[in-house]
């Protein structure tokens, strides 16, 4: 089993997301995260999918998703040639006596506190997955009340990895 990050450029048609996720569910492929957002061209959306499987499965994922009518382009975002980011929001239980400890942890990770309540804090952290995993590990001594992760978004580095879409 290995993980791959795929970047997709798709036409913004009704049902495009269910068509893509349908391929994963009916062919039994593992999807770890999926993020979707419109690109600079409002007719096109960018989807970042993290999928896992052996080499053959990952090749099939690329081909089966790639042949969907709405999918304009699919390619792997290779770790060395790309940047990945994920955003996480974490609500931690922290009354006044524990608040300072959490804040120092937040500083170490260059996270941000975006909400303070008498009994809790909401922390925002952006980074690659390992940084976010590490931060969550460091919070183990505290009670995490709620946690929301976006899944990763990524882009290839440099100008040679840009995908141009003709009209």
């Amino acid at each position, binding site marked *: 089993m290995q993980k791959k990050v795929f970047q997709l450029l798709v*036409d913004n048609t009704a049902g495009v997301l269910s068509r893509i996720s349908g391929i994963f569910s009916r062919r039994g492929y593992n999807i770890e995260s999926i993020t979707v957002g419109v690109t600079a061209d409002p007719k096109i959306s960018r989807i970042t999918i993290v999928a896992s499987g052996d080499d053959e499965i990952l090749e099939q994922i690329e081909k*089966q998703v790639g042949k969907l*009518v*709405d999918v304009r382009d699919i390619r792997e975002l290779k770790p060395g040639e790309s940047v990945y980011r994920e955003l996480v929001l974490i609500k931690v239980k922290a009354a006044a006596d524990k608040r300072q400890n959490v804040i120092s942890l937040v500083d170490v990770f260059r996270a941000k506190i975006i909400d303070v309540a008498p009994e809790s804090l909401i922390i925002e952290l952006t980074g690659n997955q390992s940084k976010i995993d590490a931060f969550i590990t460091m919070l183990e001594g505290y009670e995490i009340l709620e946690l929301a992760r976006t899944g990763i978004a990524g882009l290839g580095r440099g100008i040679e990895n840009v995908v141009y879409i003709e009209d």
Partner: protein
Amino acid sequence: MIGADAIIKCLEAEGVETVFGYPGVAICPFYNSILDSDIRTILIRTEQNAAHAASGMARITGKPGVCAVTSGPGATNVITGIATAFADSIPLICITGQVNSALLGSDVFQEADITGAVESFVKYSYLVRDVNDIPRIFKEAFYIANTGRKGPVLIDVPIDVQNATINKFKYPEEISMRTYKPTVKGNAVQIKKVARELEKAKRPIICAGGGVILSEAEDELKLFAEKYRIPVVSTMMGIGAMPTRHPLYFGMVGNNGKAYANRAMNESDLLIMVGARVADRAVNQPDLITKGKILVHIDVDPAEIGKNAGPTIPLVGDADNIFLDLMKEEFSCDSAEWLDTLNGYRQTMKKERTPNPAYVDPAAFITGLSEKMAEDGIYVADVGQNQIWSCGYHIVKSGKFLTSGGMGTMGYSIPAAMGAKVAAPDRQVIAVCGDGSFQMSMMELATMQQHDIPVKIIVLKNNYLGMVRQYQHFTYQDNYSVVDLSGSPDLEKLSAAYGIKFLRLENMDKCDEVIDAFLKEDESMILECLIDPMDLV
């Protein structure tokens, strides 16, 4: 002009001559507008068969077959037909009526989320929201259905969209789809590689799948095989890609195929798999076709290549283009010794049957029938033991062999034969089914009579769901469960009830004369053949 008129104009622009279907309120605007057109409408008796009939038509014309049904149960009934076409890559356009778009999602009467339900069985689907999108959507749908790897496209049209006034109707001349561009031309470097490997090969073989027929590459395949003296085997869907009695053709592969065909494929040192999925029934041990040999996999769908077997040389493109390009390469291929070996296998590995003389021997009957059939006759096999006998003993001359290979949908033969006959009224069309599959589609006898579609039907009657009975014979030691077809109608009386001529063959004594009588006139007829209930394929 309203949306429904626009749909008809689109169908006319695509050269559609026939629509198979079943109306309901949600598709009534369409069926009202079609009255002003020359397009022929055929009222099928259940919606699944509308898709099968359209499939039979598509397989003869090479253009998408069209069916139109209503919302809700009409749409859900057609799903099996769509899935059957999808599994065999048959181009279909399926138009479904839908409830008023303002009510979509509120579970009103006869509402079904059909675009959602068929998602995994269509090449693409549309839900038309704006009447002005109709021309573009139909243009795209016909293009998607019949290019690249062909397949069904469903267009769901809410009744208010069918009734809405369209501003300006203009059928697009050009297609512009940013996202859909199938590869049809083979990569030149890969083609050269194949030629170099063929030159070195001692035991080359071609395995032709349904893709060869879908790309109308039968002539190119034959020319290529003859030019380099390369033997050919086929999958079930590839039957008819080469004439059965061509000296270079060695039969169907797979667990229901010829033993010598499988042996030939397994012992080859270079296998050209073309237009075939390498699915379990054709190749149940994919490692046998990859180990110790060069596997060249040609398919228009890149996702098929490497899905079930890892090829040495992948080659994406349309079969006819690729054969033509391969023939431009200058090389020689010495296969004389290999052909001798294979002809030896063909002589010594024949399957010996011991037919019961009290009944019709399906093998001898089917061979006898196909010898007497017209050169370009169309033979439509159903699913079950009858299908395996048909695959094993039917002789394709220059005609076509149609069957539901991928999905194995019982009841396919009668509606598909009707579609074929509508497409080619001057050709002989014969549906061969069992007594189980016949009863799945016998309501279409009325359609045949109403619309004057003279299909000939053969029922191989053994009073069992024979294929399952055979499975239970081997797997459950004759513990038969739910396979007995007692209660089946008297086919002679049934034929009379529909006003169709009837013949019966009880054993082989009068086989020749009964076949002659059956084939004599171009009229619908049912021929019942009594088969030993215990016969095995």
